[in-house]
Structure formats: structure tokens, C-alpha cells
């Protein structure tokens, strides 16, 4: 039996989850388990060390399928190992420790970990008061998601801007974050407006790169307004490329937003900001693989960055009883993803200190492809780009006054 490389191990752990042996002392050694946002963060954060790069992964532990996993996490002396009980192969991993600021409070007495949590090496914050899809009768929530179930339960229901700024400031000081990812649910067409004050405050008062994941506005000029306010990256989660799956599993997005709105926003943002500054986010492991590959083609054709989540049947979701995807299928998807980035010259791994634990980043997928001439040329280009982009990111991570109005209509009149 051949040992899996770090990228292969990451995929298999995402698909199969892990059981935790009694030898582990995660209460002392690990970050708290925090199921926030859509629910993916409920797993165990680990780092799989590797020659090409270390890989951050949030491994499922709570779900039913994880209880039957062949993988066991074991602590031997001071080290943690993933043991594959099918063949007794042993993989050394690292457990990132919990930041001290998780247990600190903001000036309004809110626990900082109830405001945002580390998801890899960046800070993830769900800014809106839950997702509007959950408040329809019957609910129109995405069937894989548990956002509406988490807010108010594992996260505070309303995030004050001051609390977000204070939490991000502490995360920057102690955890050296470079990136804050703001996430919102459906806000009845006011999604950009909900996001705007947080973006502006983070740029002015913290000085970090800011990514926004939002339901795209039909008025594409509002994207330009958010760019002016300082948003550095946009993610549009359209989840399924196959229109039938989009309709079946995403009733709110289908009825109230439409798939085309996501495509329009993705194309507009990529055109406006350049390659790699927008992400098309999809889920692999539910729709047929051919559709996932088509999605990767489409996203990379627009110049965007494909962010592919491996489907996780999280506890409480409508799709809780669906099977976790197979390793073999995911291998095909992520190999294809990295090759597409090479083929279309989509920048990967350029931004300083962004490792994402919830998804397989394109840069993580480099472990899955053969190292031919194209691979080396692409990686050489990325390394050069990384060096050349340093001053740009340094500038972007400086606190600066944003003289842009928070009223979108005022901005439109003055600047559009």
C-alpha cells in the first residue's frame, strides 16, 4: 500500500472524516470547533505538512459518516498522527492552536469567537442577521446549508461593526491574518448594502485584505461601489452548474435570484478587477462530475478562481442523510481544477498568508497532477508574480481613509 501524498490525504479526509482517539487532548491543543456560517467549520482544523506546501484542512468529525471513517486521530507522545486503520499507515499532522483572542471579549462584552473564527489562516465572519431564505414559509434555504440554524445558536445574531473591527484587529495582531472574509446570506436584494459598512470599516480601521461572499446584486454597478469601498475579492456561490440541480437544491437562489445573476456578476467582476479576483464557488459531489467539470471550465474561462467545496452532509441540513462523495470522484475534479488554472493562467497562491481549511484550494491540488513542463512554467510564473505583487499587497493592507459614500445612490450619482 502506497502512502498518500498530502493533497491525496486531504481529499480522502474530506470524504471520509476522522474518528478521535481517547489519547487526544484537543481541549488543550486545538482550536475550538466552531460550526458557523453554512456549517462546514464544524470539523477539526489540521495542517498536513508537505514538500510543495502545507495543507490546511477542516476534517469532518461530527457527521455520521465520520463515525465510520477508517481514519483515527491519535496522540503519540506530543505528536498527532492520522492512522489509516485499513493499512496501518501513519501520517504526522499538526494541530493549530487556539488563538488567545478567541476567549477575549469586545468592548460590548461579546466573545470574539462568536464574532468570527479562523478558517485556515484567515478570519471568517458571517455579517448578516442570518439568511433571508430561511424566513420564508416554507423555507427556501439551500438544502445543504445550516446557516439559518447557526446564527443565534453558535454565533451572535447581530454583528456590530465595532465588534467586527475589534475582533479583526486582535486577529491581525496575534494571528497575523492578512485577509478577512465577510459572508452574508440572502438580504432581499440589499446584500451589497449590508456588506458595505463592514468593508469600509475594515479598510479604514484594521488594514487587511477584504473578501466578500454575497448574493450578487442585479444592479452590477453596486459591485463597482463595493470595489471603491475597498473590497479586494468577490465570491459568488452558485453551487451547482447543472440547472436542474440548481433548481432542486437551491429553491431560494432559483426563485429569487436566478443562476444567470451569478454568472453576470462573476463575468462583470472578473472583467472589472482582472484575473483571480473573483471566485465562482461550487459544490462537488452532488451533481454529476461532468457538470462540475463544466463549471470549472466556465469559471476559469471568465478569469475567475474556482473555489470548489467537497459536499459535506452536515448535521441538521436537509441533505444530512446524503452520502459523502467518493475520493475517486473528487480526485478527478481537483486534478482537472489545477490543470484548468495552469491552462488558463489563473493566478493561485499569490496572496500572502491565505490558507483555507474548508475547501481544497487550487494550489493544494498541485499534489494531484504530474509535474511536466507546463507545471514547472506555471509555478515559476506564480513564484515571480508572488514576489512582484508584494508591494501591491503591502499597500492594500495599510489602513486608509475611504472617501466613498455608504449610500449607494449617492455614490452612483457622483462616481458612476
Amino acid at each position, binding site marked *: 500500500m502506497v502512502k498518500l501524498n498530502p493533497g491525496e490525504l486531504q481529499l480522502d479526509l474530506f470524504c471520509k472524516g476522522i474518528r478521535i482517539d481517547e489519547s487526544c487532548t484537543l481541549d488543550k491543543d486545538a482550536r475550538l470547533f466552531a460550526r458557523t456560517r453554512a456549517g462546514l467549520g464544524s470539523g477539526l482544523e489540521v495542517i498536513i505538512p508537505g514538500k510543495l506546501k502545507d495543507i490546511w484542512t477542516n476534517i469532518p468529525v*461530527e457527521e455520521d459518516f465520520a463515525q465510520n471513517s477508517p481514519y483515527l486521530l491519535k496522540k503519540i507522545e506530543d505528536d498527532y498522527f492520522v492512522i489509516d486503520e485499513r493499512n496501518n499507515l501513519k501520517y504526522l499532522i499538526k494541530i493549530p492552536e487556539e488563538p488567545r483572542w478567541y476567549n477575549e471579549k469586545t468592548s460590548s462584552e461579546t466573545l470574539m469567537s462568536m464574532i468570527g473564527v479562523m478558517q485556515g489562516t484567515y478570519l471568517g465572519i458571517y455579517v448578516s442577521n442570518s439568511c433571508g431564505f430561511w424566513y420564508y414559509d416554507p423555507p427556501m434555504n439551500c438544502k445543504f446549508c445550516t446557516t439559518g440554524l447557526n446564527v443565534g445558536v453558535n454565533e451572535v445574531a447581530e454583528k456590530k461593526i465595532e465588534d467586527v473591527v475589534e475582533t479583526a484587529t486582535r486577529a491581525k495582531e496575534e494571528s497575523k491574518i492578512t485577509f478577512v472574509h465577510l459572508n452574508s446570506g440572502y438580504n432581499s436584494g440589499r446584500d451589497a448594502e449590508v456588506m458595505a459598512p463592514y468593508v469600509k470599516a475594515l479598510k479604514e480601521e484594521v488594514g487587511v485584505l477584504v473578501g466578500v461572499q454575497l448574493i450578487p446584486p442585479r444592479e452590477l454597478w453596486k459591485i463597482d461601489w463595493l470595489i471603491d469601498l475597498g473590497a479586494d475579492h468577490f465570491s459568488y456561490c452558485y453551487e451547482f452548474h447543472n440547472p436542474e440541480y440548481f433548481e432542486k437544491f437551491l429553491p431560494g437562489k432559483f426563485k429569487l435570484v436566478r443562476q444567470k445573476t451569478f454568472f453576470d456578476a462573476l463575468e462583470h467582476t472578473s472583467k472589472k478587477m482582472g484575473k483571480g479576483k473573483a471566485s465562482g464557488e461550487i459544490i462537488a459531489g452532488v451533481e454529476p462530475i461532468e457538470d462540475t467539470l463544466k463549471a470549472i471550465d466556465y469559471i476559469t474561462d471568465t478569469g475567475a478562481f474556482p473555489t470548489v467545496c467537497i459536499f459535506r452532509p452536515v448535521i441538521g441540513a436537509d441533505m444530512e442523510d446524503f452520502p459523502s462523495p467518493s475520493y475517486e470522484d473528487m480526485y478527478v475534479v481537483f486534478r482537472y481544477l489545477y490543470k484548468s488554472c495552469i491552462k488558463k493562467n489563473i493566478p493561485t497562491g499569490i496572496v500572502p498568508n491565505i490558507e483555507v481549511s474548508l475547501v481544497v484550494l487550487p494550489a493544494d491540488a498541485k499534489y494531484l497532477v504530474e509535474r511536466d513542463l507546463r507545471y514547472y512554467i506555471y509555478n515559476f510564473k506564480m513564484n515571480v508574480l508572488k514576489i512582484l505583487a508584494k508591494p501591491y499587497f503591502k499597500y492594500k493592507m495599510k489602513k486608509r481613509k475611504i472617501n466613498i459614500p455608504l449610500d449607494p445612490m449617492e455614490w452612483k450619482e457622483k462616481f458612476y
Partner: protein
Amino acid sequence: MIFNEEEAKEKITEYSDKGEIFKTLLKILRNSEEKYKIHPKATGFEISIDNQVKGKPNRGIIKFFFHKDKVVGFFYKKSLIPHSRDRFSYGGMEVKPEFSDENQIKSWLKFLVSGFSPSYRPEKFRRSFPFDIPE
């Protein structure tokens, strides 16, 4: 039946006076053949059940608590990780303290017995709460 009635005596006495809903709920629990447990030290009034779902112990819990002038029933599972503060919500309902519809209360308990299987999700069930749920 409530299998730890003696242990939870104080909690039961406290909540018996907090509205018709608790009187009706306690009556149903006591007359049921299922083995229910009332958590004596929980915040609010928490019920779980001693049964198995798909060969594993049922992790479901219903927490009743007051929010403004309503009683909220919050359906959730605790994390399997001992030190985790995660709660896995399945939603819940909000009713007035004078609520006493036995059939509806039985449908909540049926959902609990099933381990919160989606096919037993009660009618008039809220999936989401726009306020904080106490720990």
C-alpha cells in the same frame, strides 16, 4: 415516563407553574412508554430520550426557554467532541405559555424520538431564530 423524575424534581416543580404548556408536556411525558430524561442542571427546561437511532444513542435534545412573552422550544444535538461548544440546531417553535395542544406537543416529541429525522419534522416548525439561544 420520566426516568429521572426524582433527580429532576426541583426543575419539574419550577416549570410546572410556568404555564399550561409545561403541565401538558409533563403529563404526556409521564404517560408515554418512551424513557425521557429531564436535565436538572440545564438552563431552561431540557428533555432528551434514552433510545437508539440507526444503532447509535439518540443525541437529540429539546430546550424550552422564555423569550420575551413566548416559550421557545429549541431542538438540537450536542457536539460529540467533549470540549466543543457547538450546538447542532434543527430549529424549533415559539408558542404562548398557555399553549396546550396535545397533538402538537406529541409531534415535537415524536420528532425527538426519531433523532430529528426530516420526515418527522413537525408542522409549524421554525428553522431559524433571529435572536440568541441561551447556552
